[in-house]
């Protein structure tokens, strides 16, 4: 399959899956095909895609696309026929739903309380995100403020190019800089120059 066809079908698939959760009301029998009939490799691919959305009634949890059973193969043939006749995905799924009930759709259509399963995770993400943000922005509680003494104004604030006066402290600082920055002897490039 050419790259362009791949990209196009991928985009179409993305758009279709985005649109598959429409606010569909009780489906009325649709007499007229709505979509454009695909052909060739695209027909195969669309058949597989819609087959993956239908539950094989005689299997345990398998989709029509995956199941080897006779029923599944008959259903797949029907999907293919309907696609070739120009019906679109929602019409085909609604057709099977008329016979088998909502059970046969592996992806919950957007109706009734089904919005909960589609938007619940997003809601949880927002709620959880808010909790995380709150946990990370939490201002210091009064106890902590008292524990941390007010910073003294240091006339000689430390920087990377100076070492403390105390010799043992200076040695430790040099050692840390050697490990952390890779400076030989822990002297900064500025110090050396």
């Amino acid at each position, binding site marked *: 399959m050419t790259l362009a066809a791949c990209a196009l079908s991928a985009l179409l698939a993305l758009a279709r899956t985005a649109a598959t959760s429409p606010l569909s009301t009780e489906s009325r029998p649709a007499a007229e095909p709505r979509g454009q009939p695909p052909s060739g490799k695209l027909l195969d691919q669309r058949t597989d895609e819609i087959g993956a959305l239908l539950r094989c*009634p*005689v299997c345990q949890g398998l989709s029509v696309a995956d199941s080897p059973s*006779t*029923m599944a193969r*008959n*259903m797949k*043939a*029907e999907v293919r026929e309907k696609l070739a006749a120009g019906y679109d995905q929602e019409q085909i799924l609604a057709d*099977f*739903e*008329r*016979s*088998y*009930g*909502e*059970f046969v759709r592996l992806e919950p259509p957007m109706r009734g309380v089904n919005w909960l399963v589609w938007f619940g995770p997003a809601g949880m993400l927002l709620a959880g995100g808010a909790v995380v943000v709150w946990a990370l922005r939490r201002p210091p*509680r009064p*106890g*902590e403020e008292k*524990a*941390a003494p007010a910073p003294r104004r240091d006339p000689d604030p430390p920087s990377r190019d100076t070492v403390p006066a105390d010799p043992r402290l200076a040695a430790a600082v040099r050692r840390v800089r050697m490990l952390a920055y890779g400076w030989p002897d822990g002297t900064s490039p500025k110090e050396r120059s």
Partner: protein
Amino acid sequence: MATTLTSGAGTARAPRLNRKVLVAGLAIALPLLAVLVANLGRDPHSVRSPLVGRPAPPFRLVPVGGGAPVALASLRGKPVVINFWATWCVPCFQEHAALVASARTLTGVQFLGIVYEDDEARTGEFLRERGTSYPSLMDKDGRTAIAYGVFGVPETFFIDPQGRIVEKYVGALDRDAILSLLSLARGGGR
């Protein structure tokens, strides 16, 4: 490095309830338990048919062994019993006798069999051996089974004279069940 807060230690024994934790926990636990309890005893494998109360899907199928095709539309005006069956299905064999007997006595009702995923020669032989009093139709591409939402065999549909499905019965029928469901169909359905 880290400022040390006083940890609770074993001294904070006063049972003060953290309401937030309790409420959040119950908000998750109670609905979950309620849903599970509500579904106890339900069999997830028996799916109710959405076709009950709706017009029966039309079909036009050829009988086993050949002959003129039978269309559902031509049977308007009297109750119809459609029985999906197969020779490899043990309960179908069990109910066959009851169905054949009922079809003989109840002449105002049209009994039909539709063969589900089976071989025509084998079906013909079965019917010849066991005898039958009503036609069985071949559903070669399985479309009629799909249209009727068949999950397996045997499944029997009772249709009223106006062509609406009044009940779907899953499993082997006996004479009493046939009679009681037919009275529903004759009464024009609910």
